């Protein structure tokens, strides 16, 4: 049972990442490969504050969100002026820079040695220790991410994001400062990804740079694509499918070493199949194959 709740907690953490990335990819039409970088920023900010300063969980979450917002602002101002492939490459570059910092700033992050001993969260007297407690906490965070993205998407703000995705020139011609909308969407997306990072750090109690590589970004993109972008449930479904199905391979008795390799093949094959036959994902509205 504990194993099952562990998988569900991971699915919730990835759901936060996928839902937040959908705000940028599905709703605004900008494919970012830097999501794991913001995930890592949240994790490292929260972990360092907890381990070095004894800060509480919520302080770490808020600091991670704030820091991710500030960094996203600095990154997005130049990169969001770029379009399509150029934006993807710019975010890839940023992802690599952040990973290098996580991996090489030994005095702060301890590099590949990672940061151990991150305490479990305590929120207003609620000590989050058991897997069920963590599942509840992760569910609350995922619901918060869903609420934020849904509220934005269904508002006039979301209408402009949609217009930017469909035809940015038209949005400009109607008097919309498209850069402001894109920067804001990027910041919200980054801040929500940071909450997932904080949650992950305090759940696993140990972080190192291998959790925040470009492969992690691609995994989250795969969740959005496979579940379906620009939809209420698509990213959540994508997260659950991509977290749970590889685990199912182990449950059928496949050795871990084989299952790990098969997982990569499975992701790749699923992406190819979805692009060929269902570019809107399982329940999405935005087609990547346009």
């Amino acid at each position, binding site marked *: 049972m504990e194993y099952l709740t562990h998988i569900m907690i991971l699915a919730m953490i990835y759901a936060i990442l996928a839902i937040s990335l959908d705000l940028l990819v599905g709703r605004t039409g900008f494919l970012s490969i830097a999501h794991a970088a913001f995930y890592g920023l949240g994790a490292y900010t929260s972990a360092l504050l907890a381990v070095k300063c004894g800060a509480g969980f919520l302080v770490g979450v808020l600091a991670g969100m704030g820091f991710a917002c500030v960094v996203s602002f600095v990154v997005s101002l130049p990169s969001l002026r770029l379009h399509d492939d150029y934006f993807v490459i710019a975010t890839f570059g940023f992802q690599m820079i952040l990973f290098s910092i996580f991996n090489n700033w030994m005095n702060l992050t301890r590099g590949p040695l990672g940061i151990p001993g991150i305490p479990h969260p305590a929120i207003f007297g609620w000590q989050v220790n058991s897997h069920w407690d963590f599942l509840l906490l992760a569910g609350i965070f995922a619901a918060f991410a869903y609420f*934020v993205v849904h*509220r*934005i998407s269904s*508002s*006039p*703000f*979301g*209408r*402009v994001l*949609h*217009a930017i995705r*469909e*035809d940015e*020139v*038209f*949005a*400009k*011609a*109607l*008097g*919309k*400062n*498209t850069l402001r*909308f894109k920067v*804001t969407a990027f910041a*919200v997306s980054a801040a929500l990804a940071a909450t997932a990072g904080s949650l992950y750090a305090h759940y696993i109690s140990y972080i190192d740079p291998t959790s925040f590589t470009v492969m992690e970004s691609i995994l989250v993109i795969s969740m959005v694509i496979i579940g379906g972008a620009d939809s209420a449930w698509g990213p959540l479904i994508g997260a659950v499918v991509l977290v749970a199905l590889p685990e199912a391979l182990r449950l059928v008795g496949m050795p871990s070493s084989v299952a790990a390799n098969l997982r990569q093949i499975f992701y790749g094959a699923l992406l190819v199949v979805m692009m060929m036959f269902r570019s809107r994902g399982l329940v999405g509205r935005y087609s990547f194959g346009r």
Partner: protein
Amino acid sequence: MNALRCEKLFKSFDGVHAVSGVTLEFPASGITAIIGPNGAGKTTLLNVLTGFVRPEAGRCFLGSHETTRLPPHRIVLMGVARTFQNLRLIGRVSALENVLLARPRQRGEHLLPALLRFGVAREEADNQQEAMRLLHFADLDNLANTSAGELSYGQQKLLTLACCLATEAHILLLDEPVAGVAPEMVANILTLLRRLSANGKSIVLVEHDIEAVRRIADLVIVMDEGKVIAQGAAHDVLGRAEIMEAYLG
């Protein structure tokens, strides 16, 4: 009302002068048509005036305010809106949503009000009412909930006009508003433009359809090779045989 003007504008692409030393002042009301052969620089001039293209030299003004280096959205908020030669709409959403998008200064377009919804519902209701009024003006109110992409070409042209009006701009720059439209729809569009002009809007249109220009323009500007080669009252300019023959065929 502020008039739109430009001084000694230059813009070239790959060494070809698209706009070359153009100085113009558009009247603050009435209908002005810019005509000329393909490649004369008409659309480039519109792009420069609306901030979509930066000129290499020269300046643009709206009244006493210089707009030369302002981004397009700022120029729209100052009261200059435009349409495009190639139709630009959000085809997958309704005609109503397209017009709603164009409403200026919406509180719900800011993050916190969008999240918390303070005052957004009432504002949205007001905007919907105004959008329906504009769709009624364009005779599209019965198609308000139809996807923009499913409208006929002429109806889409009308919808772009409604979007332009929804920005509350008082100067409308329309790039070929009747090109490719069925004759009965042309008549509708021209009637609407006349009504807008009578209501005080200043309309500048780039148009190849000389008959349409003859029917509605008060002032005509003729461009060729990036330069203004003639301008004046419509009946004067369009009555000059050398212009009609040399530049319009």
